[in-house]
């Protein structure tokens, strides 16, 4: 919480500015869309933060999302596999991808950046080849049950007919559940502690009897599984999927969200709440840019600029706080003589 002050401030500013300057920003429809997007991107952000905590990185998320999004209808529609079987296969695929990354990173001690850069290309190629570049659709009624996940809360039995539920995306609920689980895992379980420790100093963690290999692999698996699930949500939301482009750059969005949220790529630091804020800021920005009618050309500039600003403010805030703390204690110490 306290460490996310900087970004919280930025979010507030952007929100207020847009609320004032952009017509329709506060409309129920827009807020609904905004929240849904935030939820989707936050989910993959959470996924990658597991890996980032270990001091690793996963660049393949984007094309893995593309691969999953293509494979699922390829199985369900193309080969008449049942939904459940399809989902299981998707899960298996994700686990395998995670294992593959993890094993290469630990057993062969390859650099995560390199491994996932290669798989980034590989997954994209497989996705394109699998359906020979044709667009896949999720409009088939067989996907109906799943589509609930990207619908409105009111469509779920439990929230039947509640008025407010009509303005809340189910994705938000999903994101919150995943977020809470992730936060508990990272901060309250020994596994989370292990990850934090080895993220800082793998050798020392290893010599303290932590099974670093197992934990790192676990992190990559968690990341891939989350991305696989994210892929499903994105695909269901976007409905049509182009193998050659679907999901590209999402890894950067995810990583940026994590970093904005206070994860250090040097490992050992990460806050799930922060990641969600990070995703929120980025989606909010994109939305604001549209609402304020900024030219698309500038969109990328604005996003890059504000993220950078956020990070810089963050650092400066931290420094000031540290300085103040130091000075206080110093005077205390001095007084103590």
């Amino acid at each position: 919480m306290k460490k996310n002050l900087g970004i919280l401030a930025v979010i507030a500013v952007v929100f207020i500015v847009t609320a004032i300057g952009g017509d329709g920003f506060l409309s129920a429809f827009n807020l609904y869309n905004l929240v849904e997007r935030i939820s989707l991107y936050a989910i993959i952000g959470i996924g990658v933060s597991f890996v980032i905590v270990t001091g690793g990185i996963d660049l393949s998320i984007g094309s893995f999302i593309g691969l999953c999004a293509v494979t699922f209808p390829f199985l369900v529609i193309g080969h008449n596999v049942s939904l459940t079987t399809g989902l299981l296969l998707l899960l298996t695929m994700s686990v395998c991808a995670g294992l593959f990354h993890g094993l290469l990173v630990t057993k062969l001690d390859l650099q995560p950046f390199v491994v996932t850069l290669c798989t980034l290309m590989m997954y994209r190629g497989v996705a394109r080849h699998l359906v020979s570049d044709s667009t896949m659709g999720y409009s088939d009624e067989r996907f109906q049950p799943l589509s609930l996940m990207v619908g409105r809360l009111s469509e779920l039995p439990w929230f039947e007919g509640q008025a407010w539920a009509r303005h809340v995306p189910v994705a938000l609920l999903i994101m919150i559940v995943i977020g809470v689980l992730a936060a508990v895992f990272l901060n309250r379980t020994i596994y989370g502690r292990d990850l934090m420790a080895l993220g800082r100093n793998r050798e020392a963690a290893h010599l303290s009897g932590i099974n670093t290999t197992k934990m790192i692999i676990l992190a990559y698996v968690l990341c891939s599984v989350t991305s696989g699930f994210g892929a499903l949500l994105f695909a269901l939301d976007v409905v049509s999927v182009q193998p050659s482009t679907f999901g590209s750059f999402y890894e950067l969005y995810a990583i940026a969200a994590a970093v904005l949220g206070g994860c250090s790529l040097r490992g050992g630091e990460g806050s799930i709440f922060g990641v969600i804020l990070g995703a929120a800021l980025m989606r909010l920005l994109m939305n604001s840019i549209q609402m304020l009618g900024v030219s698309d050309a500038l969109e990328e500039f604005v996003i890059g600029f504000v993220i950078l600003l956020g990070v810089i403010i963050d650092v400066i805030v931290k420094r000031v706080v540290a300085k103040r703390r130091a000075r206080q204690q110093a005077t205390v110490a001095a007084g103590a003589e």
Partner: protein
Amino acid sequence: MSESEPAPLLSVDRVTKRFPGVTALKDVCLSLQPGEVLALIGENGAGKSTLMKILAGVQLPDEGTIRVAGNSVTLDSVHTSQSQGIALIHQELNLSGNLDVGANIFLGREPRRFGLIDKDTIRKKSRALLKRLGLNVDPDTLVDHLPIGQQQLVEIARALSVDARVLIMDEPTSSLSQHETERLMQVVKELRCDGVSVIYISHRLREVMELADRVTVFRDGENAGELTREEMTHDSMVQLMVGRDVSQFYSRQPHPPGDVALEVSAITSPLDPGQRLSFQVRQGEIVGVSGLVGAGRSEMLEVVFGVRPTLQGHVKVGGRQLRLRSPVDAVEAGLALVPEDRKKQGVILELAVRTNIGLAGLRRHRRLGAFLNEAQEKADSAAMVKKLRIKTPGDLQTVQFLSGGNQQKVVLGKWLAMEPTVLLLDEPTRGIDIGAKHEIYTLMDQLAAAGMAILFVSSEMEEIIGMSDRVIVMHEGRITGELPREQLTEQSVMQLATGG
């Protein structure tokens, strides 16, 4: 200082340095005559290294003045300090392992020809320096491939390569063994003859007595007193440092050992695949391992702890055969290893003291299968901070801000907290002050009395002889012999250590 003395080459006047939560130095003074060897001693956290870092231009003092040859200077960078002729051998290793020995020795001051680095000159000079320290490694070998002891010597060589007026050595011998230490003493004496002034920091009072012309003592960041060569005695120094006298230093009372706790049978020696290593440690026994730097003692411990793979042989703990695949197995079997290089292998610098201490016990104390037991963690760390007298503002302080010795205590605490049955120690008192050493020895004694089996590698002859019930001596990867307590003498050990 009185009129009779000549103007000091270096003088520190009422210097104060504060850190968050600590005042490391309070109005400390210190003066150094040309061609003098000044020993600076004090407990862990007394402020020795801090003052030296200030002199080396690494940190700036909050108050106070520093004079070199009479005129006051502001040492705001390593460069200015070097240009004043001050060179510092840091307490912790600071080498770039990806570069070769020569490159490290001359890093930042490379000799050049036609604007390009003159590798030949570097090679030539390096070889000379290393020879002077009695280290015969090729200047072209990567530092990564050297054991920590030899890396320490490279650090010293680097400091010598700056022909400084003032040479500061912050615990240069902490990871050296008898042999290298004596060599270093020789070098220091030579330097004194060449008119170089030396500030020598060490917790090994023996070396201090042998070398120092004068001793300055710090306690809790303040001057605690000064001793001339005549006044120097073990007790007087300890008295000034600790503020109480620690007589009857080695508190080992051997008990009749119990049954075999650790049995190592015919494991292949990591240094010499031709050799097999076998030995036993019984419950309640303290077994020392001695040898020269590079004898392979650390490696042997690492094999037992599952860090290094072994080709053949097996290890039994409490009669149970151990799968030597990783420390995970070892820890589960109740083994604990306090490693040699605390900064890299011991502590996690960026984490709090509490977290570090809790690390090894996590699994043991977990709740509902997977959840942290934070209460337990808190209790453990509190206990250890008290038991080991770790000097820290609180157990939430990040370890990197602790003094070297206190970091070492944190590593010990981590393992004691998980109550191992067999304790492997590699240079356990490295960089630890007299008081704390005494505590650690007493602790070892108590633990042994409580039935723990302790195997400890040390390069410090006194503590080997003082603490061990039995000593295993190694030479170039082989066990050259085993000495029972009654046969322990420096000669007997050294003889085996140099190859029998």
